[in-house]
């Protein structure tokens, strides 16, 4: 393996590109061979102790199955949860934090607002570096970038001695106002590097140069503690590569919906933290393009969570801040709303007679009652089974038998009897409540942008999504549902079509008036120059480079900014007009007379990777209509046809109610919906007026 360098411009002229998405259970691969245009999927178990083992196993299996040589692989695009899991499981480096003296506790004080109002025994907010490893630095910057107290360089030796005594493996540095003037942070880094050359140091002015000290500290600390963890993984990956002529360029998936070089990932691993949803969102963007549907709301439903992302006008929504395990991450990321609703969500009835579904989840262990692993509380998956929507003998393609008797008994005991309902209406009620909750999450995601669900198609994926999609769409007034091919490896499919994306930002509060233009122009020029240099460092030829400029804007006094794309070269009037229009669309009012401010300028540097066209899948010769099954639907048990997704020819039309099965997913086509194959092997359901 080697990092891309300037003397190796992209792309490498080798025909095979592989996308790998390492999940908790499976490592998913999508392989594109440019010689045939074929895109093939493969799955292999994840090896949690060292995910690069499973990755290599998957690559070798795919090579022998699909007939390519390891030396044919030019590009490996790698989605990994290594950073995410390290945070969730607290397998992080032992770190120290250097802050402006007098502000060592900012990380622990947090923003201190509680999310649950009526709790009497709150848990503390998570804090990754305890108080005895947070050290004050004698220095102080002002908000305008002026120096109030110069950095006391004489004190640095003492700080380094304390880092030694604390056995710090990584150092985070977050000084007040460093987003305006990073001089003190940079000088500290130089001095530490000179004294302790191997010690990794993260500066807040590098990873997240934005205003608000707690959010910036949190981001900096996460990055610092991840550097050794991610570097160790990348080193292990390196030792696995190189075998059998396998010398691809390697890129890693970031939270922002793009990929980055190994060098970037090693220095700024916090950019990988929320990369899980990137693959799905990228796939949604690709499908939007292939199907000519510029407005898609993508929903990914698994065992424990339901993730919503939005493609509007062909673009994936990106926000400037996210959160992991209650810790803010101030970095651009794919906009995603997650609610705790999945196949494992538990239903119950409270003392007031209220039916609730979730947020408690049975997860994978013990899992739904149907799994027979000790689960006693009925879940959404159990409701789907009880109503006949899932086949007890064909779950996961028949790999797991489901226990219908236990499922029905649990629904009767925990939901039916307390509500005075028979099993079927109780199960139906569980689904109704679930679908309404899912619909509310979708609506809120669109509402926040001032968008109307009726202008969108719903893209459904994830193991449990297909059973709920047409019902949720009906709930929302959405008239089209798209079930992409291989819904279980869709993230890898998205990764296969990604680009290099680097985000750069500078915070500086400036009024959006002509007198600010020189300062704005200088900042933008600086950002553009740095962005172009970074892309060149990653081997992107000038003709494949694309720079997008944007500004976080607000009315003077507001705390939250809208990210406004700046399409016209430094035309402030056009930028301000777009801000007013966006504000009106999102918040139902705008005031052209109000003062407008620019808070942060952003440049997104995109290095386009070539997008070879993929071919259409060939239909198999099997009959597509497998048979029928008894399903409780619209108040009665009926025979409902069951279709085989993989055998479906383009001319067949499926009329709901109907079930469509494939190896790792089951789809429910509701009443008033019809479905048939569309481009790229996607199954497209449309609602007729009932």
């Amino acid at each position, binding site marked *: 393996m080697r990092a891309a360098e300037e003397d190796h411009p992209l792309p490498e002229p080798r025909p095979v590109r592989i996308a790998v998405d390492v999940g908790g259970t499976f490592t998913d691969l999508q392989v594109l061979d440019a010689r045939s245009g074929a895109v093939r999927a493969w799955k292999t178990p994840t090896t949690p102790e060292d995910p690069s083992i499973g990755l290599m196993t998957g690559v070798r299996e795919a090579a022998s199955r699909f007939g390519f040589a390891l030396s044919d692989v030019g590009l490996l695009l790698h989605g990994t949860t290594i950073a995410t899991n390290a945070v969730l499981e607290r397998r992080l480096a032992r770190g120290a934090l250097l802050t402006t003296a*007098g*502000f*060592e*506790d900012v990380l*622990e*004080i*947090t923003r*201190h*607002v*509680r*999310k*649950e*109002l*009526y709790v*009497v*025994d*709150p*848990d*503390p*907010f998570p804090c990754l570096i*305890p*108080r*005895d490893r947070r050290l004050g630095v004698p220095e102080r910057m*002002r*908000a305008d970038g002026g120096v109030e107290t110069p950095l006391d360089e004489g004190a640095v030796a003492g700080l380094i001695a304390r880092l030694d005594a604390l056995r710090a493996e990584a150092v985070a540095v977050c000084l007040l*106002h460093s987003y305006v003037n990073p001089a003190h942070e940079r000088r500290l880094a130089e001095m530490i590097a000179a004294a302790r050359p191997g010690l990794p140091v993260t500066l807040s002015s590098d990873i997240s140069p934005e*205003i608000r*000290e707690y959010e910036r500290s949190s981001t900096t600390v996460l990055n610092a503690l991840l550097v050794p963890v991610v570097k160790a993984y990348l080193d292990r990956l390196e030792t696995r590569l190189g075998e059998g002529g396998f010398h691809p360029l390697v890129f890693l998936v970031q939270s922002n919906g793009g990929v980055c070089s190994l060098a970037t990932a090693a220095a700024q691993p916090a950019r990988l933290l929320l990369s899980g949803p990137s693959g799905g969102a990228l796939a949604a963007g690709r499908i939007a393009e292939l199907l000519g549907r510029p407005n898609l709301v993508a929903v990914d439903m698994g065992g424990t969570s339901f993730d919503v992302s939005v493609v509007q006008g062909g673009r994936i929504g990106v926000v400037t801040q996210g959160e992991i395990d209650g810790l803010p991450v101030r970095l651009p990321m794919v906009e995603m709303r997650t609610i705790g609703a999945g196949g494992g969500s538990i239903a119950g*009835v*409270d*003392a*007031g*007679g*209220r*039916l*609730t579904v979730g947020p408690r989840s049975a997860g994978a262990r013990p899992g739904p009652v149907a799994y027979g692993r000790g689960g006693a509380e009925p879940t959404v998956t159990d409701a789907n089974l009880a109503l006949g929507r899932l086949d007890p003998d064909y779950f996961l393609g028949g790999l797991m038998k489901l226990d219908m008797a236990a499922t029905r008994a649990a629904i009767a005991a925990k939901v039916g009897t307390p*509500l005075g*309902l028979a099993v079927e*209406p109780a199960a*139906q*009620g569980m689904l*109704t*409540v679930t679908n*309404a909750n899912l619909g*509310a999450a979708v609506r*809120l995601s669109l*509402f*926040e942008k001032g968008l109307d669900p009726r202008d969108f198609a719903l893209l459904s994926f994830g193991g449990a999504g297909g059973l709920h999609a047409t019902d949720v769409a009906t709930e929302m007034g959405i008239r089209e549902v798209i079930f992409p091919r291989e819904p279980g490896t869709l993230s890898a499919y998205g990764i296969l079509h990604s680009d290099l994306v680097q985000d750069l930002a500078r915070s500086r*509060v400036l009024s959006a008036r002509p007198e600010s233009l020189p300062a704005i122009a200088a900042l933008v020029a600086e950002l553009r120059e740095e962005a172009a240099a970074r892309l060149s460092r990653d081997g992107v030829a000038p003709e494949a480079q694309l720079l997008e400029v944007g500004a976080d804007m607000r*009315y003077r*006094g*507001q*705390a*939250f900014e809208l990210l406004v794309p700046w399409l016209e070269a430094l035309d402030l009037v056009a930028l301000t007009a777009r801000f007013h229009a966006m*504000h009106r669309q*999102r*918040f*139902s*009012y705008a005031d052209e007379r*109000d003062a407008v401010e620019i808070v942060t300028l952003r440049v997104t540097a995109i290095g386009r990777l070539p997008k070879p066209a993929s071919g259409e899948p060939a239909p198999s010769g099997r009959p597509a209509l497998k048979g029928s099954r008894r399903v409780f639907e619209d108040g009665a048990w009926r025979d409902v046809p069951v279709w085989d997704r993989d055998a479906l020819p383009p001319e067949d039309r499926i009329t709901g109610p109907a079930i469509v099965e494939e190896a790792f997913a089951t789809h429910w086509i509701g009443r008033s919906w019809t479905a048939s194959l569309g481009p790229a092997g996607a199954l497209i359901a449309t609602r007729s007026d009932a």
Partner: protein
Amino acid sequence: MPLGPIEIEVIRNALTAAAAEMDVTVWRTSRSTIVRELLDYSTAVFDAEGNNLAQSARIPGHLNSMSHLLRELLDRWVDPASWGHEDVVITNDPYCGGQHLPDIVAFKPVEHEGRRIAFVGTLCHHIDVGGLAAGSYAAKAIEIFQEGLRIPPLKLIENGVRNEGVWAMIRQNVRKPELLLGDLSSQIASLEVGAAALRRLAARYGADSMIEAGRRILDMSEAAIRAAIRRMPDGTYEFTDFLDDDGIDLDQPIRLHVKLTVAGDAIAVDLSGCSPQVTGPTNATLASSNSAVMFAIMTACDEPFAANAGCYRPVTTIAPEGLVVNARFPAPVVHRVAVTHRLLNAMYGALHQVVPDRIPAAYYGNSYVCTFQTIPQDAPREVLVEIEIGGSGAHPAKDGVNAFASGMHNNSNIPIEMIESQMPLTVTHYALRDGSGGAGMRRGGLGLTREWRVDSDRALFTANMDRFVHAPYGLAGGGPAAVGRLTLTRADGQELPLAPKSDNVPLVKGDRVRLDTSGGGGFGDPAARDPDLVARDRALGYVRP
């Protein structure tokens, strides 16, 4: 459409989602730091009679008083028949069912099929509504007229048209009109968003079903609370806690006495033993006091419930007029939050005797409100309202949490970098306050230290705080937390204590004000604390050696 338990839950979730949509709208569009950074606002949905049906996750003191206010408006102040669905009514008047003047509440009815099916409401704590000190949180007012502009219930928007006279009237009477009116516009936008969400729901279920669902949603919450109360041992339980004073008659503690009677599935709370109303602004109207009583009982219940006005039904509050918990016009009331915090502390003291495994020791019990008005020679005056917090009380099973917004309020902090970017003030220190948590088998959470320095030529400082004499109590043998402290360090280094209730203290460039807040009380015998935890507290400096 017939309404089974399924439809009820779907509608209830949709109402909560509507309150959340309203919340997002205020958060994203508001202008002042007190709304957008401190998050001192709430949004909610009500039935046509004014009963709260669903709440956003914001400020309990607001949320559980808005129902009281809306019902009072409908009963006495606004003719329901002439309140059109394009009319927005606002008020901040404590003597029309509100709480204190900085809290402007806006309500809008929602109609479907020609019938009123609901109200939506938004409450924002505004940065300044005039009166004798910036921030309208004067500590020395003796009549409500000194506390700022009092807006009777009136139509800010009538038939969809802004009542420009009212906007102009407000503009001339407040210190930061562009912030107040910007925040007011946010409130209106959020009402539009909430109303649209409810109309969408009504279009699907119909007016009759919406009204019926509302009734049953309230019934279910009532049943949940009653189920929890039924498990509590019958009996009468009493507790007393004290506010330091009213800022006028110093060294005159204000008594908050609670006599709580559990009988079957109902609770009666008698507040007759509280002090008479006081001269200064440490008074509360019944709307405020009731919200503390309700919050205490809701959190003491071990049964899951949806928070709404149904939860209030099993509880009766007895509070004669003329007491500090039910002040009579024209008493000043801006520091009503202190009364509600202390009332909650007293309620928990009584409830600890009822459900000892559930109730924590006292939290800091106080909103540390302080205001800086900077007065530069050649630039506009700026106002900063800070509301600081302390530590939470230790729980029977857990330590208290350091720096945790507890009890009646739920504020965030204002980023230091935001303050310094916007006005000539520097925050010179912000830290946990060592040793401020009460000792115990479970230690109380730590309070905070925050210090500000004036960078403008002149500034005025106002503080309205409590718990400087009467410390947050411990329970079951746990120790009390530290009391608060406010210190002025003059530019020349001279240090002097500042009274926690002070108006318009003149400051000059270089002066520093330091606030040390209380932690939470401890729970259980300190000698029974795990030695490893004791060692860790020492190593981290949470306790002083």
